[in-house]
């Protein structure tokens, strides 16, 4: 697929006209698919990511993606679709983490230990498979330009399901995430919500791996949401900002990579990181001088 993009980009030059540039890009099916899947994943990652960040379970999300690596590699070895392996492994991992309770999801050492083992397992699976280098590369760092029309459909359906569940859970999950004890006292089933949410994280991770790969999941799921948390004082605004940052980074990453022969994931991670950095710097410089309060 990498050769395809080089062939496509060969002779195409940046035209300073967004409309004609995009029209030219979208002549290629793989660019269309990349934009479609990238857009879907950015929206879901923004929504789920906001809750991952306010629940302080970003390392758990990171760990899940590594568990997914073993699943994807195993699926490749068995001749199955890597997405299937990702879904099975990340969902299993998510259920296990949620089953241990929310505090367990914050235990870095345990998650890190399992994460390392899963990466090791993934390496074994990949080495048993003949097409070692390319497969490992695309699972680890994403291969958005290799997304097929079927992948786009699967991604879209999965994403619609995740968003539908989130629409139902929205307020109780917010309450349980920000204020677990009071939410429980108000009759919110915090434990069940925790389990369902980890499954949603697992599913989102699986579809996001196609875009940025297991190692760079943070860039789509956590960094935009962390930016949003710093900027927004209302949850709905926070979710909107997380989606916008994830979308802008995915779109600009795809756009730039059409002209420049470097990986899309690099551009996506650079944009989300840049936006996060600027946000923190601006907030730090604008922070008012503390005054005595009653």
């Amino acid at each position, binding site marked *: 697929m990498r050769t395809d993009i080089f062939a496509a980009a060969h002779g195409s030059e940046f035209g300073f006209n967004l409309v004609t540039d995009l029209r030219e890009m979208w002549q290629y099916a793989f660019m269309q698919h990349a934009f479609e899947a990238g857009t879907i994943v950015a929206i879901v990652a923004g929504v789920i990511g906001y809750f991952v960040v*306010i629940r*302080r379970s970003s390392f758990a999300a990171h760990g899940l993606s590594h568990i997914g690596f073993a699943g994807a590699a195993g699926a490749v070895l068995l001749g199955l679709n890597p997405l299937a392996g990702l879904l099975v492994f990340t969902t299993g991992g998510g259920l296990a983490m949620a089953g241990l309770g929310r505090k367990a999801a914050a235990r870095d050492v345990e998650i890190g230990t399992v994460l390392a083992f899963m990466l090791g397992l993934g390496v074994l699976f990949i080495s048993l498979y003949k097409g070692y280098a390319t497969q490992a590369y695309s699972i680890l760092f994403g291969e958005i330009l290799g997304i097929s029309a079927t992948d786009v459909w699967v991604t879209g359906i999965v994403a619609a399901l995740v968003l539908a569940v989130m*629409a*139902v*859970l*929205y*307020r*109780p999950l*917010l*309450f349980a995430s*920000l*204020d*677990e*004890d*009071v*939410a*429980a*006292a*108000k*009759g*919110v089933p915090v434990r069940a919500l925790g389990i369902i949410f980890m499954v949603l994280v697992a599913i989102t991770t699986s579809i996001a791996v196609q875009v940025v790969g297991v190692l760079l999941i943070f860039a789509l799921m956590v960094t935009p949401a*962390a930016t949003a*948390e*710093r*900027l*927004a*004082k*209302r*949850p*709905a605004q*926070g979710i909107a900002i997380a989606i916008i940052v994830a979308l802008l980074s995915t779109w600009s990453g795809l756009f730039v990579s059409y002209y420049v022969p470097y990986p899309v994931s690099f551009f996506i991670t650079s944009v989300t990181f840049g936006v996060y950095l600027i946000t923190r710097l601006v907030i730090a410089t604008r922070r008012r001088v503390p005054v005595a*309060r*009653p």
Partner: protein
Amino acid sequence: MNAQTNTTTAASPDVIVAKNLTAGYRHKIVWRDATFSIPKGEFVGVLGPNGAGKTTLFRLLLGAMKPLDGSIALNTDEPRQGHAHVGYVPQRRPVDDATNIEALEFVRLGLNGHRWGLDRGAAKERKTAMKALKAVDAEALARQPLSALSGGELQRIFLAQALVGDPEVLLLDEPLSNLDIRREASLVQLIHKVVKERGVTVLLIAHDLNPLLPVLDRVMYITNGQVATGKPETVITSASLSALYGAPIEVLRDSRGRLAVLGIEEAAHAH
């Protein structure tokens, strides 16, 4: 057992009624055979050494655990989770420097956080939340992120969130810890004002009795596996407090008749 409490509380203005109540976990009884009743609109201080079972009482009232024996009724009902009549402020809250949610939205969760589905009726709920903030003199903090608030300000916001659903009973678990003396006194006065204005019954867990002395209607001591309640003037004596804590505690009275309790903090932490 439930029917029995129903008949006894129906005629009385008591909000909380416990009969021969024993609380604990499968292998450990925390306290036993407590019988007490708390009338509507009282400000009750819940005191006792660490680990004596003060929070256990709250867990029973919140329906988070069941009595091992005896009964407890809240407005003649058996306590259950999601009871609309109870406002709750737990001991520790997860607010760090990245928690950028504004106070108003946080208070609003107390109103609709348990409802499934998307956020509807936000404008009306924000008005109700604003009223709750006004009741605790914190309107000015409505748009402030939680991370920017001081300990005393946060306690006001938590109180507003507990009040927003218009509860009849407020359970406050150590709201005074980590506050300096001035903020302690002002929060106590504020809670006192709410009790009187709204007719809310307050149970407040505290380590130090002194900031509460001017406003308490009733004192509840939980210690040595027992629960004792009484009016402040009968319970707050050197003899009864020393007996309760099993350590020398002095109650002093100054020239204006004000009480001060010495030695209770040390006794509470020694256990």
